[in-house]
Each structure stands twice: as structure tokens, then as C-alpha cells.
């Protein structure tokens, strides 16, 4: 009897092959990268349980989770603020039955834990012109002092919610990461590429 085959559909793969051509610039002003899926777990502190949640997180990741709109980069995870009393855990933990199980135990009684590994797509926007391009999409002030490395925000683009944070700069400019809702990803990807076109955009998967 045929065994079911569970091939996972990589996010946006179709579009990146079929993406519409954009002005070439060398080096490109903007680099758009769809990141390979990681474990993504939403941790929401219970009533009066924020302190306990912080302690539990410190135990797990070696540093406290963000309690302000920030991204905390630990040895093997990124903890991103996703609202008051809650944060997202992004890491490469082995995909097991229930990606959230381990954390659920760790936070038992202090926080509620929900798996979102398939609920979001992670997109990176980088390059000299990243800010100019994002100014078309994002109402936040992403200028260096106002939005430093490690800053994060829950905001919306094209009326859809996104989580965004700033990674350390790379050789040719700032690096921003976005988590967008999976079912909106194609729509937003179009917006990203269209907005980047005038600067010359390189698009890729990683």
C-alpha cells in the first residue's frame, strides 16, 4: 500500500523562480532573501507570570527574553518581542513531533506556548537602499538612531501584521528581518519586489 509522501512546500519558492525582472544594479541596492523555515514558537506569559517566564527563558537561552520591542540574539536562538508579555522563539531545534513540546514543558505553569513554525515566513531585506525601499512599505522610522541594531517592532504593512527587527549590519548596509503571515506572504513578496525594483534588487532563498 502506498505510503503518503510528506514533501514540505518551501515558502515562496514558486515566486522566486517566476519573480518579475527588476532593474539590475551592481551591487544591487536591495537584497531580498526568503529564509529557510526555522522553529518558531510564540511564548505568552500567564497572568502575573512574566517574571517567572523571564527566569525560565534565561535558564533555557542563557539570557532574558525581550520585555520591550527588541530582538535578543542568543547563542542558538533569536528571541523577538511580539507584544506585551510575549515573545517569539526562533531557532533551529530539531523538527520533532511537536516543535513546541519542549518549550511547553520548560514554561509549564508560567507561560502558554503555541507553535507558529508554519504560520510565518521569514524575509530578510538588506542593502544600501533597504531603508529607502522600506520607507514605501513601513510607517516606522527605521533610521539608524531611531531603530538601532536589535530593535524590533510589531507593525503592519499593507494592512497586514508583521514582526520586524534589525540584525547587525553587513558589509553593504543595514539588515532587517520580517516575519509575515504565511497566507499573506505571496502578496507581500510582490510588494517588496515592486518597491525594490527601482534600486535594483537581488532575490534569493537561504
Amino acid at each position, binding site marked *: *500500500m*502506498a*505510503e*503518503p*509522501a*510528506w*514533501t*514540505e*512546500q*518551501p*515558502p515562496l519558492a*514558486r515566486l522566486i523562480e517566476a519573480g518579475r525582472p*527588476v*532593474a539590475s544594479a551592481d551591487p544591487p541596492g536591495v537584497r531580498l532573501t526568503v529564509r529557510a*523555515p526555522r522553529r518558531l514558537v*510564540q511564548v*505568552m*506569559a*500567564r*497572568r*502575573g507570570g512574566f517574571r517567572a517566564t523571564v527566569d525560565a527563558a534565561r535558564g533555557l537561552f542563557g539570557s532574558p527574553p525581550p520585555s520591550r520591542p527588541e530582538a535578543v540574539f542568543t547563542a542558538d536562538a533569536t528571541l523577538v518581542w511580539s507584544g506585551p508579555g*510575549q515573545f517569539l522563539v526562533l531557532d533551529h531545534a530539531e523538527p520533532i*513531533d*511537536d516543535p513546541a513540546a519542549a518549550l511547553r514543558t520548560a514554561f509549564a505553569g508560567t*507561560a*502558554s*506556548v*503555541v*507553535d*507558529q*513554525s*508554519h*504560520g*510565518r515566513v521569514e524575509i530578510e531585506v538588506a542593502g544600501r537602499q533597504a531603508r529607502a525601499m522600506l*520607507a*514605501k512599505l*513601513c*510607517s*516606522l*522610522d527605521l*533610521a539608524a538612531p*531611531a531603530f538601532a541594531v536589535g530593535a524590533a517592532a510589531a507593525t503592519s504593512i*499593507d*494592512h*497586514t501584521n508583521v514582526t520586524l527587527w534589525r540584525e547587525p549590519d553587513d558589509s553593504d548596509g543595514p539588515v532587517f528581518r520580517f516575519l509575515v*503571515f*504565511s*497566507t*499573506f506572504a*505571496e*502578496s*507581500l513578496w*510582490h*510588494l517588496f519586489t*515592486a*518597491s525594490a*525594483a*527601482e534600486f535594483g534588487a537581488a532575490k534569493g532563498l537561504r
Partner: protein
Amino acid sequence: MADLVGTTGVQRRAAEAATQADGQAAAQPRRLAAGGLIDRASPLRFTFDGRPLTGFAGDTLASALLASGVKLVGRSFKYHRPRGILSAGSEEPNALVELRSGARREPNSKATTVELFDGLSALSQNRWPSLSFDVGSVNSLFSPLFVAGFYYKTFMWPGALWERLYEPAIRRAAGLGRASGLADPDTYEKAWAHCDVLVVGSGPAGLSAALAAGRAGARVILCEDDWRLGGRLLSDPAEIDGRRGLDWADAALAELASLDQVTIMPRTAVFGVYDGGTYGALQRVGDHLPVPPEHQPRQRLWRIVARRCVVCAGAVERPIVFPGNDRPGVMLASAVRTYIGRFAVLPARRTVVFTSNDDGWRTVEAISAAGGEVAAVVDPRGSVPARFEAGSRGVPVIAGVVAAVEGGSGGVRGVTVRTADGRLRVGAGCLAVSGGFNPNVGLASGFRGRPGWRDDIAAFVPSGGPPGLRSAGAANGTFGLAAALREGHAAGTEAAAECGATGHPGEPATAADEALAITPLWHVAGAGKAFVDFQHDVTASDIALASQEGFDSVEHLKRYTTLGMATDQGRTSNVNGLAILAAGRGRSMLETGTTIYRPPQVPVAIGAFAGHHRDEHFHATRLPPSHHWAAERGAAFVDVGLWKRAQWFPLPGETDWLQSATREVRAVRSSVGFCDVSTLGKIEVCGPDAGTFLDRVYINTFSSLPVGRARYGIMLREDGMVMDDGTTSRLAEDHYFVTTTTAKAGPVMQHLEFCRQVLWPELDVQLASATDQWAQFSIAGPRTRDLLVLLADPGEDLSGEGFPFMGARAVRLRGGLPARLFRISFSGELAFELAVPARFGEALARNLMELGAGLGVVPYGTEALGIMRIEKGHVAGPELNGTTTAGDLGFARMMSTKKDFVGRVMAARPELIRPDRPVVVGIRPVDPARRLRAGAHILPKGAVPGPDTDQGYVTSACFSPTLERWIGLGLVSHGRERHGETVRAFDPLRGEDYEATLCDPVFYDPDGGRQRG
């Protein structure tokens, strides 16, 4: 680039003579041989009404037309009077053209702001058949009739003729240019910017403000409407810090460019101020080019968030109201200066200057310096202002007023001047008029503020204004150059300091002081039409008439005469009109006041506000996990909110949706099918108090729901009406999984958060949206279990006992994939909903097709889904219409009496429990072949249609493949007691009227045996 300061008139005349020789310039007879900020090395070809003409880079359409000797440019709104070019800026009321052609045609474009480009084509407007011969101009013969508000007094009889005759005629006559009528081929963008100090305008004041703020270290954005920065310095000779004004401006710009905290935005008009320091600005990215560059928009709309704003938008000169003042060739004095100084165009050889203030005398100087002849200066004040004696030597000065203008569409030929001792005629081709200056107070009055009045300059000036906004320079009534520089610098310094900038703002630039002396002159009475609002043909006598009829509040005056309602928003006319009203009423200007200022400061294309949100990108699109798989199978899609959902899956040979949907239903009912229902809202409700929480939001009880079970629930709004329904499963003691309808996912999440955060903060609950995390398929039909066993891990017990109806739990699938399985059914069949992590959605679809091939599995879409829920009598969107109660839908008994829940009390109001309320019933036409349509109303059999006999309507209808006839659900008064009754289905809109039978809403599997089986 050479310029005209320092070159004397004599040299100029010589130079002009010289260029007249070589023919090239002859094409531009009014162009001066040297000077101006134009690039003579790059000539540009363009056409006006088809006539080929040339100009230079740096020209506006208006300056190029003037250079070419074109005087007549347009026709006025009401009387179709011939009109020329009045101004040199965005205040232009007359010189409006249809710019470009085809889909890019732009009506009402101000020739004075259009940047000339090679190949530009423009047409004059509002004339037929031609500009020089315009039939519409007969209107002026009837002008005695067409006074202010004439149409309110007539066209009343016979009433029927209004729409058919009078109004269409009025409409055709009105309007100005023609819209293209074709979809706009260009793109638009919107963007955000943030700064400490926004400086509006780049004249001496604006540059000083930007310099001061920038040097102090503030984040500055400098917006300039014009493509070249400098403001009046581009037009008027000036000396600043001991150098030429232009050089100072260029140096200032260079310094600003060197400050990385400063952003300079030319071709960007700040059009409005909004709450919280948000400013709207329009950047004309590609309007100076034939078509925008690739990947670039035509225009970009900026939302600039600024902590402070310094408005240095300058002042607009106002004309004087006298008979014949609308003739082509009558121009604003400062505009004449601009054409000479900036564009090297001398509008006419002989010019009369008519001014009530000193600034007009600068024009006298400029004309003479350019080698033009000033035939006379008419200044009611009589004497030559001391500081202009030198510059105007030999020019005849007349103490009087201009009382009439000769000339027609060919332009001004001369003027009649009235003096203390009689009238005299002066011949001239141009009349330069200055009635004083109106500061641009629009932005400062942006929050419906009222400007103040200053007698010394006879002008309205900013007072108060939006928080964080201040004005400086001419925009603030500070007309002197030196003062403008000082004020701009001070404003920039203060604004920066208020933003915490601590750097040194440097010293203000200095210049010779020259205050504006003025003796206001508004209106020269006399025979003939004296225009106040040129574009709308509002005359001095219209204003008198309106006042006489009691329309003497400024707002009534405006609305009755349409003063200031044209495309220039009365920038050159309002104050004159108000002054005439004030004089007539013996009121002061302050008592009289102004009309309300409203955005936008300059008209903004609708496309710019839309940005990229058009066509298929109007709204974002949301795709369920199996979308691409469904597309590959040729599914038809339907828009449900933002979602695209598969509506049906046509097979080769199937010609219409009903055929496909019917097949899908039959397949499900006889074997098995599956449908992607991931669009349902999914909310994880976690925490110790989750049960209590759900008890309070649902009418039924969930705290008692055992782990591993699901329950159907209904939630109400606080007003007692049904808000949403769905199944909720308990996956663990402290973990529920709530599903909502597709439409209500967002609102329900917001409502639950409100309950959690505002109503019951004491409850320990956490909410997370999981809609995107799971691909959830409904798998339905008698063979469902046979299909699932092929998919599920052998260890999973899917038997009736092992997985009873309304069971719900995490399962593992073959190949180890974790999933969630719910045994719920809305089709009346044995059915499960299976949820897998979203990126496995496509795989799930493929697996179901492969594994189910032997069972004849089909994918089905929303049509089949809808048909089956109607057959089963399940309520959905059309029944949950926001005006139905749980009782109306047949769930009265589900409402717990033992607990508080949202909506409980209001649901008990007398009108909401009346026995005659429309309630859910089944409906089927008496004639089995007859189609039933949703929207048909239900009347008693044989009743005469009327408000009293209207008893309800059909909410949902479909062709039931199972019953092989059309059936439906409806909301009908007393419906429950009337099962079996024959009623009248009345659908006049679709020409249908037939008998139908009311029945039990559950057409299929009434005892629930199949879905429990």
C-alpha cells in the same frame, strides 16, 4: 550663466537687436537675448493647440508661450472670456491647459507650473470649436442674466425639462478640461519620512530656516514645490551677505547638501497638515519627463512625520479689481518680474504698471533694466517711492487708477487711466498689476484656523495654527528680504531647539532692509465687467448682488457666487472679494473674516493617494495552503474577504459550475471528498481560566467540555445578536482550539482580546491566532474512514468508538507527521477535519488524491460545501446577518440560563423574543423544476405585495443534487409553526413570482444517523 543684474537697458536693447538677426530666436520674439535661468543650449520643441513652438530647458509652459508671443491661452468658466497668463505660479486662475494626450491627458494643468519638456503637447480648454473662435462666448451676451445664483431663480418650469434639457446644458457648459477617459497608464507610490524640522519652501526664509536647524544638528527635510530652489531669489535681483542673491542661495544649498541630517526635496509640494505632526507632500517624480523612468512612479505621495514645521511658503500677489482686468496681457507685477528675471522673457515691449504698493516699482526697475519700455506707472499714491527713484528715472508716473482696458482676445492694446483731472489713454501690450501680497496662510490655517489681519501690509497673516507649526518670511507677512532672512533663521533655530538639537545655528544672513509700503486699493468702480475671481467669472457686481440678497456671511458669499471655488481656490481672488464685501457692508476685514482653508494646498492627483493599491493589488490577497495545487487542477476561485478560495474543480467536458458542483456533492455523499477549510479562523485559547473565559463569550458551556471533545458554539454581541459560530475543541485541560467563520476571524479575535484585556483581566487566559499555522481540510462522505486509515498512523483508532462523533485530538499520520483530527460535520455525512502544519497542505491534498483514488475521492469547493450545508440545514453567513438572534436561528435552548455571557441580558428584550420574529425555515418551490433564488421575499399565498404582507425572505438557495430540486433556507415570520404551508415567493427584481412550501430546514439526514455513523 549670464544674468541681467548689472547689464543696462542700452546693452540689453543692443543684445536683443543682435539676436533678432539670427532667425532661431525669432521663433521666440519675446525672449531676451541673454540672462535668465534657462539653458539656451538645450532648446525644446512643444505644441500648443497643434502649433509647433520652441522653448528652452528651464522654461515653464507659460514662459515658453510668452516667449513665443502667445497671449491667448484659455477661456473662462462661465462667459468663456478670452484669457491669458496672469501669474507665474500655482495661483494661476487663467492659463489652464489639457497637458499631454491619450491616456496621459491631464485637464486643468496650470501652464505656469508645467515644466517644459521636449515633445510636450498642450491644448487650450473650455472652447469650441477653437480658442480664438469660441461659440460659448455668446454666454457673455446673456451675462446680464447669468448673475450670481441665477440658476436658483429659474429653470423651474416645466420641472421635467430640468434633467432633460437645462441641466445637461449647464453641465456641458461647465467643467473645464476633459479627463482622458482611459485608465491611467502610470504608476504611483506612497512613502513615509520622519524628521525633527520640516521646512516648507526654499526662498530666503526657507533656506535660512533649514540652514539654522541643520547646523544645529536637527533632522531636517526641506520641501520645495518648484524644481529649482531659491524662491523669489530666482526672479528678483537681490544682495545677501554682500553677494548676489542667487549665489547665496546656491551656497546655502551646497551647505545643506553637505549636512547628512538634511534632506532636500525639490518638486515636492507640502499639500496639507494632519493630526500628530503628519504632513502630506506630493513629489512629482516624473512629471517633467514625457514618461516616467522605468520602475519609477509618476508621483510619490509622502507622509512626513515632523516634530516641528516651519512654513516659508511665501506670498501671492493679488490683482486689483477694475473693468477689463481679465484681458490677456494683464499680469501680476511680480510675475512680469519673474518672466524677465528667471525666464528672460519680456511679455511686451510697452508695459503699463498699475500698483498700490512699493513692490510694483521693482517691476518698473526690472522692465527698464531688461530694455523694455514702461509706458507709465499708475500709482494712486502719486509719488515715486524714494528707493526707486534711480531705477525708474524717465518713466512717466500718473497719480490715478486704471479704469478700463482696451483689447480683446488679441490681448491688451492700451489702458484708460482715471486721474483727479480726467481720463487719459496709454497704449501698451501688457498691464502689470500689483494690489499687494497675500501671505500663503493655508498650511498655518490648516486646522480650520482663522488668520489674523494686519493693516500695515493690508493682508491676512497666520495666527495660532496646528501644534508645532510656525510661519516665517513672506508667508508670515514679513515681506522685506532682510527681515525674511532673519525670521527664517530664528524660526529654524527655535524649531531645532524644541527638538533638542544643541548645535550652533550660525548667524542669520544679512541684506538691505526694504519694508513694503502699501495703500490698499481693492476695486476701481466703473462701466464694464470688473473681475474678482477670473476662473469662475465672479465680478464685483456679483458680490454686491449676493450681499444685497443677504448672502453676506463670507461662507454664503462663497457658495452663492462660487468665489474662490475654482482650481486656484481663490489664491488671487478671495481677499479682493472679501474686501469688496467688507466695504459694501461697512465692516472691517477682521469682522468679515475669511472662508475656511482646506487641504490640499495644491490639487493632488487621485492616483497619488491610491499609490500601488489598484487593479489586482487594490487589497492584499490571502492564499490557503492548497491554492497552487488547486490552481494546477484548474479550479475556479472565488473571493471571500481577502481569500481566494477554490469554488469548484471542473473536469474535462463540464461546461458550467452547477454541473461540477453537483458532481462533487454526489461524490461526497456516495463516497468521499475533501475541501480546504483553512480559511476558518483558528484561535488557540490557553491558560487555567480558558474554560471560564469561553463560558462567558459563548451562549453555551465549554468549561464542562471533556478533553478530547469538540462542541459547536454560538457567541453573541453585547446587544444580543448573533456574532459568530463555530466548533471549539478541548485539546488539554488548559488549552482550547476555537474556530470562527472565515469572515469573522479578525473581528472575533479582536472581541476575545477585548474580553480578556478589558472585561475580565482577572482571568488567566492567553490568545494566539493559529489560522496560518494549520492547513485544515474537511474530509467527508461515507468512505471517509476508509480514506483516513490509509493516511493515519496504524496506531490511531478511528473507529466509531475510538473516535466518536465530536471527538478531537492530536494524531500522527503515516510517515510520522503530527496532525490534529476533529470529527465534526457540516455536510450531514460522516466527516472529519484534519489539520496538518501549513507547509504540508499541498502534500496532504496530493496524498488524499493518491490514496483515495480507489475510493473515487474528489476535491470539492465552496459551492459544494454550501450546497451540502443547506441540505443539512446548517446556518451560515447569510443567516448570521447581524440582525438575527440565537432564537431566530433555532438555538434558543442552547442559551445557558446558569451563567453570565456576552449578550445574555439584551437578548431578552421584548422585541427580540416576539413570537412573530422571522425564524429559520426550509423552503422549496412547489414546482420541483422551478429555481429558488436567495433574495426572494416570502408573502402569504395569494397576498398582495405590501409592507404588511412582507413576511421574510430566502437567505440561501441551491440546487440539491440529493433531492434533485432547488431548495433553500429562509427567515420567515412564525416560520416554525408554518412547516408545510404554501407561500408566495416574490422576486420582482428578477421577474419571478411563484409558490413555495415552507418546511423543516434540515433536508438531509434529519436524525443525524449518517454523520454519527
